[in-house]
C-alpha cells in the first residue's frame, strides 16, 4: 500500500524537519520524526534486536562491563570469605561505600519509575520514547542496589534473617526498624517495577515474535509474549491494568526513597536526624536518575539509530527536569544549613560546618558544584539541546550525586558526638573494586537488554503518532470509494471520519 497522507513536520509551522524542540503552543510538537507509517516505527526499533551483529562499540562496552563484573565477583567473594574488614570501615564509620552505593543505585532507579508512572498519569506523551529503557535502567539499578545491603551484613549466609521466615529459633525481624522497612520497600519496588516493565513489553515482544525468522527467536519471544494477539478486548483490560500500575507505582516510588532516607533520619546522628530527608532524597533520586537516563540515551540513540524516536525534544525535556530537580536539591542543601543554625542544636551546627569545612570539605564542594552549580547551565536552550554538553553535564551530575550520598553518610559518622572516637575513612581497593564492579553489572545487564529486547515501547510510540487517531484529518479526506453496506448509521464518530471507511491510506496528501 502507498504511504499515508503526510502530516510531516514541514506541514507544521514552527518545526523543521529534524528539530522538534521549537515551542509553538498552537501545534503539538511531533514526537516521531521522519516517519509517517506505523511499520517504519516497528522496523526502526526491531532492527536492533534483529540485526545479525550489534555495532562494534557494543562489543567494546560489553567486554569492559563483563570484565568489571568479574572484578565484582572477585571482590564480593573476597569479602565473604574474609570479612567486612577488607573494606576501609572503622569504628565510627561503619557505613561508607556500601551504603553510599546502595542509596546511589536506588536513586538512579527512581527516574525510570517517574517516567513510566508519573509522566503517564500526567499524560506526557513524550515519555513513550524513553520509558522502556528507563524502566530497564530502574530494574538493573535496583539489582545493583540490592547487592550492597546484602553483602554488608557481614555474615551473608544469615541474610535470610531479614525476612519474616518461620525458623527454629522462634526469632522474628524487628518491624519497628527502618532497616526492615527498607527490605519491604526495596523488595516491593523491584517486584512492581519488574512487573510494570514486563507488562509494558508484552505487546512488543509479540511484535518481535511475529517478525522473528529463526526458531530460537520465535520460541523465546513467543514464550514471553504470552500469546498476545492485540485483541481490543485484551487491550481494554490491559490499559486499565497499566493505569492501575502507574497509579500504584507513583506513591510507591515516593515511599521507597523516603524509607531509604528513614534509615538515616530516624537515627539520632547529627546531620542525619532531619525531617527534610524524605522529600530531599526523592528529589535527589529523580535528579540523579534523569541524569543517568540521558547518559544512557545519548549513546544508545546514536549507536542503534534511534534518533527519530528519542528526539532532541525528549532530551531537552529531560534536561529541564534535571534543572528543576537540581534546583530542589540546591534548596535542600541550603535549607539543611539554615535549620542547623536555626535549631540552635550544637551538634547539628557542628555537623554542617564540619561537612563544608572539615576533613571532607572537598567531597562537599564536589557535591555542590556538580549538583547545584553546573546544572544551572541548563537554563540555556542551546546547552539543553547540545548533545556533547548535555552528556558531559549529566556525567557530572552522576558524580555529584554519588558524592552527595558519600557526604551525608561518611561526614556525619566520622565526626559524631565524641571527639575521642573521630576517625577518617579511606576506601580500600576492595571498596573501589566493588563500586566499579556494580557499574559493570549495570552495564552488562543494560547492554544485553539493548541487544535482545525492544528498547523502545513500539506500541506506545505508535499510539502517540497523529496517524493513530481515527479522527486524524488525513483519514477523512477521500470520498472516492464510497461505502457499500452502510445501511446502518454509525452513531459515535464524526461524520468526517466515517464518510469513507477503508479508503484511508491510498490517497496522496490531503486538504483537511
Amino acid at each position, binding site marked *: 500500500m502507498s504511504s499515508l497522507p503526510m502530516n510531516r513536520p514541514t506541514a507544521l509551522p514552527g518545526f523543521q524537519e529534524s528539530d522538534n524542540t521549537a515551542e509553538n503552543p498552537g501545534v503539538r510538537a511531533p514526537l516521531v520524526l521522519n516517519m509517517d507509517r506505523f511499520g517504519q516505527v516497528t522496523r526502526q526499533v526491531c532492527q536492533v534486536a534483529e540485526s545479525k551483529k550489534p555495532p562494534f562499540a557494543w562489543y567494546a562496552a560489553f567486554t569492559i562491563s563483563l570484565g568489571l563484573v568479574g572484578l565484582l565477583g572477585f571482590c564480593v567473594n573476597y569479602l565473604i570469605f574474609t570479612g567486612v574488614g577488607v573494606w576501609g570501615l572503622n569504628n565510627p564509620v561503619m557505613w561508607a561505600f556500601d551504603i553510599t552505593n546502595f542509596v546511589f543505585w536506588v536513586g538512579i532507579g527512581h527516574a525510570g519509575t517517574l517516567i513510566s508512572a508519573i509522566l503517564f498519569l500526567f499524560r506526557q506523551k513524550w515519555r513513550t520514547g524513553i520509558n522502556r529503557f528507563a524502566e530497564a535502567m530502574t530494574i538493573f539499578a535496583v539489582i545493583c542496589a540490592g547487592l550492597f545491603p546484602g553483602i554488608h551484613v557481614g555474615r551473608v549466609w544469615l541474610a535470610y534473617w531479614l525476612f519474616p521466615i518461620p525458623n527454629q529459633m522462634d526469632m522474628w525481624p524487628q518491624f*519497628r526498624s527502618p532497616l526492615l522497612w527498607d527490605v519491604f520497600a526495596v523488595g516491593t519496588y523491584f517486584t512492581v517495577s519488574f512487573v510494570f516493565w514486563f507488562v509494558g513489553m508484552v505487546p512488543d515482544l509479540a511484535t518481535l515474535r511475529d517478525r522473528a525468522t529463526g526458531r530460537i527467536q520465535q520460541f523465546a519471544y513467543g514464550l514471553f509474549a*504470552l*500469546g498476545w494477539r492485540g485483541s481490543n478486548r485484551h487491550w481494554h483490560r490491559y490499559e486499565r491494568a497499566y493505569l492501575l500500575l502507574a497509579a500504584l507505582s507513583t506513591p510507591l516510588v515516593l515511599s521507597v526513597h523516603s*524509607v531509604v532516607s528513614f534509615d538515616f533520619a530516624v537515627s539520632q546522628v547529627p546531620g542525619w536526624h532531619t525531617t527534610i530527608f524524605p522529600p530531599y532524597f526523592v528529589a535527589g533520586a529523580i535528579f540523579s536518575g534523569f541524569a543517568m537516563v540521558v547518559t544512557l540515551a545519548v549513546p544508545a540513540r546514536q549507536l542503534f539509530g534511534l534518533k527519530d524516536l528519542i528526539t532532541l525534544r525528549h532530551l531537552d525535556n529531560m534536561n529541564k527536569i534535571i534543572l528543576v530537580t537540581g534546583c530542589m536539591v540546591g534548596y535542600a542543601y541550603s535549607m539543611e544549613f539554615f535549620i542547623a543554625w536555626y535549631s540552635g542544636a550544637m551538634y547539628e551546627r557542628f555537623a554542617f560546618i564540619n561537612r563544608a569545612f572539615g576533613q571532607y570539605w572537598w567531597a562537599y564542594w564536589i557535591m555542590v558544584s556538580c549538583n547545584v552549580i553546573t546544572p544551572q547551565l541548563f537554563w540555556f536552550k542551546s546547552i539543553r539541546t547540545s548533545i556533547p554538553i548535555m552528556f558531559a553535564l549529566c556525567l557530572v551530575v552522576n558524580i555529584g550525586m554519588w558524592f552527595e550520598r558519600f557526604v551525608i553518610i561518611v561526614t556525619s559518622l566520622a565526626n559524631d558526638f565524641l571527639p575521642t572516637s573521630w576517625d577518617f575513612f579511606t576506601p580500600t581497593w576492595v571498596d573501589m573494586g566493588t563500586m566499579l564492579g556494580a557499574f559493570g553489572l549495570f552495564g552488562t545487564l543494560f547492554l544485553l537488554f539493548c541487544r535482545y529486547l525492544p528498547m523502545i515501547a513500539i506500541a506506545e510510540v505508535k499510539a502517540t503518532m497523529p496517524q493513530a487517531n*481515527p479522527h486524524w484529518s488525513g483519514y477523512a479526506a477521500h470520498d472516492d470509494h464510497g461505502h457499500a453496506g452502510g445501511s446502518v448509521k454509525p452513531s459515535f464518530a464524526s461524520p468526517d471520519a466515517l464518510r469513507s*471507511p477503508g479508503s484511508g491510506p491510498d490517497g496522496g496528501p490531503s486538504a483537511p
Partner: protein
Amino acid sequence: MTTLSPTTSPVIQGNQIPRKRLYGIMAEFHDPAALMAAADKVRLAGFRWWDCHTPFPVHGLDQAMGIKRTILPLLVFGAGMTGTTIGFCLQAFTNAASFSIWALVWVTGYPFLISGKPLISLPAFIPVMFELTILLSALSAVGIMFLFNGLPRWNHPLLANKRFLRVTDDRFFIVIESRDPRFFASRTEQFLKDLGAKAVEMVEA
C-alpha cells in the same frame, strides 16, 4: 475491494471449509479510522463473538465495539486491602503476640519490647503495611488482567495465520468467530467485504 488471494492464504475461498473446522472470518484494514467505522457496523449488526485486533490501543474503539468497562479495579482494590490486612497481622503477630499458629509449621509470635514503645506500634507498622498493599495490588492487577484475557495462551488459530502476523506491526483486523449465532460463512464474508476491508480471509480452527 481486495478479494482472497490464494498465494498469501493457506485457506481457500468461501464455503469450502466445513463449519466445524472454521474458526472465523478475518477482515484486514490498513488504518484505525477504517477499522473503527467497520467495528461500529459489526456491533450494530448484532454480532457477539467478534473482536478487533490492533497493533496499539485505538482510542474510541471500546465504545465502537460496545465493550463494557472491566471490573478489574474493584478486584485490585480488594487485593490491596488484603495486603494491608496481611501487613498488619504479620507485624502484630511477629512483634507483639505470644501465641502460636500453624502456618506450614507451628510458629510462635515474639513480643518485642523496644525502648518502651507499645507492642502494637501502629505508626511504625505503616510502612510495611503500605508496601504490602502496593505489592498485592500491583501483582493482582497484572495477574487478573492476564487471567481475564485468557493469557498466556500460546496456541491460537489466529496466531497460525500468515496474514495476521502484521497485527503487531501495522495492520488492523476484525475477526468474527464461527460460533456467533449470526455467523454464516458466505454472508458474513460478504458483510465484511462490504465494510471496506482490504482483504477478507477464512481462518481455520
